[in-house]
């Protein structure tokens, strides 16, 4: 059974996958696996950039949306003309001949990755380039075009070790996707910087504690050479930040609402015994 594994941290947003899909499917008829994809408007493998944080602590990640090749695919049960089937290798195919264009699969899909082709009156989506796999190719075009190995394709058994720490996309309906993700952008950074306003210098080695106001769990780290602290991959929630260094008046920031990547800004730590100017 085939799986696709997408490591978001290895994606640099080159879009080769999105375009290689076009190169394979636009103006090429791979019936009975797929009819041609329209020139634009459909993205069987779609890349979306997510920009978060604020100057100068900004990160970009790239989300990949494609058919999840579900083992319990809601589209298969929703289709009124029995046009959608699952192959032995796990790939879900919409038979372009049988598709009657009633669009029920589009509504049923929890991931919004099925498109409708009005010219051909059929639903269309990623086929994992099954027409190529059937010819002996080892991977679909999106994976072939990936320069970093952010996309991996293969037998579930072969990728077992990597899949152990991977997750699938959540959905309202249980669908059992065959597309797995590493480092999904559903956890966020909480970052900032600490400086001494009197000395006009950043403060290295400041102890910064991030305390979850819900679970009371505390993580502690030291500011780096730039006085920066980065709490990576935190769950969304409400937090308190405690900033301490010997010889300085400790500071607390709360509550911090983290629903996305967050730069709390530059924090001035006042030396003890000095009056604020």
């Amino acid at each position, binding site marked *: 059974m085939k799986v696709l594994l997408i490591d978001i941290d290895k994606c640099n947003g*080159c879009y080769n996958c999105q*375009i290689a899909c076009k190169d394979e499917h636009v103006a090429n008829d791979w019936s009975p696996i797929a009819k041609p994809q329209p*020139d634009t408007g459909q993205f069987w493998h779609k890349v979306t950039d997510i*920009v978060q944080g604020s100057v100068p602590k*900004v990160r*970009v990640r790239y989300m990949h949306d494609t058919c999840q090749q579900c083992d319990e695919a809601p589209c298969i049960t929703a289709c009124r003309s029995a046009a959608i089937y699952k192959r032995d290798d796990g790939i879900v195919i919409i038979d372009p001949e049988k598709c009657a264009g009633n669009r029920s699969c589009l509504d049923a899909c929890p991931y919004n990755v099925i498109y409708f082709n009005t010219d051909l009156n059929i639903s269309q989506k990623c086929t994992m380039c099954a027409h190529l796999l059937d010819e002996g190719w080892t991977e679909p075009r999106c994976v072939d075009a990936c320069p*970093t190995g952010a996309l991996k394709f293969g037998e579930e058994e072969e990728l077992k070790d990597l899949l152990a720490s991977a997750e699938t996309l959540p959905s309202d309906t249980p669908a059992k996707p065959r597309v797995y993700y590493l480092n999904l952008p559903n956890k966020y950074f909480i970052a900032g910087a600490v400086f001494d306003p009197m000395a*006009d210098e*950043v403060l290295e080695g400041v102890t910064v504690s991030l305390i979850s106001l819900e679970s009371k769990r505390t993580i502690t780290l030291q500011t780096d050479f*730039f006085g920066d602290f980065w709490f990576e991959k935190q769950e969304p929630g409400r937090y308190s930040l405690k900033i301490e260094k010997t010889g300085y008046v400790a500071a607390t920031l709360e509550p911090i609402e983290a629903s996305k990547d967050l730069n709390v800004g530059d924090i001035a730590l006042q030396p003890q015994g000095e009056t604020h100017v």
Partner: protein
Amino acid sequence: MSEQVFMQCTVGGPVRVYVKDGVITRMRPIVFDDSVDAPSWLISARGKKYTPPRKTTLQTWEVPERQRVYNNRIQHPAKRKHFDPRGARHPELRGKDECERISWDEALEMVASEITRIRETYGPAAITAMTSSHHNWGFLHYKLGPLGRFFNILGYSQCLDNPDSWEGWHWGATHTWGYWWRLGHCEQSELLQDALKHAEQIIFWSVDPNSTSYMYSGQDNLIWRHWLKELGIQFVFIDPYDNCTSATMGDKWIAPRPGTDAALAEAIGYVWLTEDTYDHFFVENRTFGFDEWKKHILGGTDGIPRTPQWAAEICDLPASTITALAREWAAKKTMLAVGSIYGATGACRQAFATEWARLCIYLMAMQGFGRPGVNFWGGTAGAPPIDYRFKMFGYSDNGWDAFGNVAEKSYFPFGNPVTQKTYRILLPDIVMNPPVSWIGEGFCGNSIEQQFQRFTCPEEGPNGAPIKMIHRHGGSFISTMTETNKWVQMYQHPNLEFVVMQDCHWQSETKFGDIILPATTNFEHSDLSEWGAAGGYGLNDFNSNHRVCIYQHKCIEPLWESKPDYEIYTLLAERLGFREEYTEGRDFEDWIRIVFEKSDLPKHISYDEFKKKGYFVVPAMPPDEEPRVSFRWFYEGRPSDVYSEDRTPPGPPKTGAGLATPSGKVEFVSQTLAAFDPNDQERPPMARYIPSWEGYNTAELTEKYPLQLISPHPRFSYHTHNDNKSYWLDDIPGHRVKRDGYAWWPVRIHPSDAGARGVKDGDIVKMYNGRGTVLCAAHVTERVRPGTVHSYEAAAKYDPLEPGVAGSPDRGGCVNLLSPGKMVSKNVPGEAQNSCLVEIAKWEA
């Protein structure tokens, strides 16, 4: 017909091309065949082993190459409707006129007879010709091939290129470290191993390798930067824009105001001097003039110490950040990602850019570059342990006659009887307002003296002539030169009697031609090449994981009536009576075979096998070969031993253990500049921060145009090569933004600047200044610092609301309509795109 599979190479990597019934259906990278193809190299570093993937990679812009072949092509020879070579020429209608289809015979006859007439009336110097910066890949067919040989035999005013992507390094760094034979870039050799083993930090100063630094090499070196990150090597980025590498791989983003980089550099030097965190031995033994610089930085010359507080005001950065950066840099073994062609972006294309480039070298000298882990390198070229000794030609190896590498007679540099030159960036003025003078021979790769040579066009004396004819090849200069409404005016000027546009596609400027000649893409003719090999000035700057030589198969028949460039020039040469000199009686396959024979390929593979298979992987360096790292020889005080500096003429001078400067050392005070003009305050012998002639500091301009526009090379098109042809790129919002049925060029603006102007994300805005107006889609983002806007240069679509009217608002996104025509400084004839003030307002059509 069954499916056929061919081999080809593009400007962004080699491709396997699948063809069915004479139509290309698919292109993909090469996956190596382990049973035949040479094994890859292996590097051991810090307990890990690194070896590259067994395939080639493609640059994003080449993945939709199938669309570039079929879209927006010039199908037939054409003539501008109101152009009559025997009567009224109506130059004022260039860009507005319709085009009429004519036959090849008519078109060639008209071009040949106009060339003859202009030569007889004004002399051969009245003709100039040029290609775009980049073109269809192929050693023989690339930009220095068919056009160069043709015009050098004919005789013409050579159009000198300005080093448009790295001006500051060319006109500045050469006076600090030599390397004029590399046009100001330093040597780059075996730095991947050195970085993986020893470096602790890379500082990318105005450098974005994930976007632009692959050059021709697909995305092969991206994996190196992942390895560096895996080993915990810190990436620091200095850029007003949180560039694509910074945004995904950066550990620290420092965003100074555009145009103030030199001030930041001086302040870093101040911290090192006052805290004594620099390499005294290196400074004393490998540099010249350090004490004078030290005095200047500490305030001993003008009473202004270049403190972090001083720079903070100028750069709009916290002084504490500047101090921290300086300390971190001195504390860690640091590579600085500038100094090579792959480290050439915004900061070297601005007013007084020579100063920042030179200061970068000063700083690295203070840290003793050449020792393990301390060097000029940004995770790109000159890096892997591939075999630099294998001989294969690069496209610039013989200057403006690639055929001359293997021909019985080369026509460059001594074929052209005309001594008059034009200068690309000044061409509109040269045509419209002659005479025009400038100092510096464009690419000064033969000697430092070329930088000081004086030119005037028309040349004085009987052999000079005003420019009357332009023959153009390839992409658009309206998109890539500066203040380019001038190009529109030039094309419509009565001084210009004849314009030929020879191209594959309807580019921005094609409609300005009187005669239009349709050329094939590389997929419609054969050629051979090495992937990524620029040769000449690039001297082995290999940027990919494997050296791969390609037999570029003709995959499909020429589309519509197009012909290969070589064939077009052969037919013109025949009409003008020099076909024999041009072709030496050879057909094209003969040329390919000679190149093959004169390379090292025959030592490994037969011609027939190479042609059939389509590619050859050059074996990697033997694993026991000791790496010869850039500048290690200089650091250790012995003669240079790097392979890359020992090949192509003119080559480096034999200076023993020194650099090619008068002192053989890094010159803090340049003796070449002091000899040329010791009183030049705009490029003084000793580099310093000089406030821009257009920037945050020019109050008379900022009142009307308060935003600073930076326009680096684009991420999703190789200059103008792919945009407006490969339309799948338009689905990438970072490339173009689709709105109301039109694909707009984005401009990035900070939320605070957008809010102040009532601009929302996705709004169509007009970006304007006294030089022009460009309509763009606003992208409101935290990736750009407040006060700065960012929009890539090189949109390949010039689409003014009123066609052919200079100054009409452009919908296509050619932001160089706005950039200043003023050059870097009075004696530095380079582009300064990033010294550009604009204002932005919501566009109400």
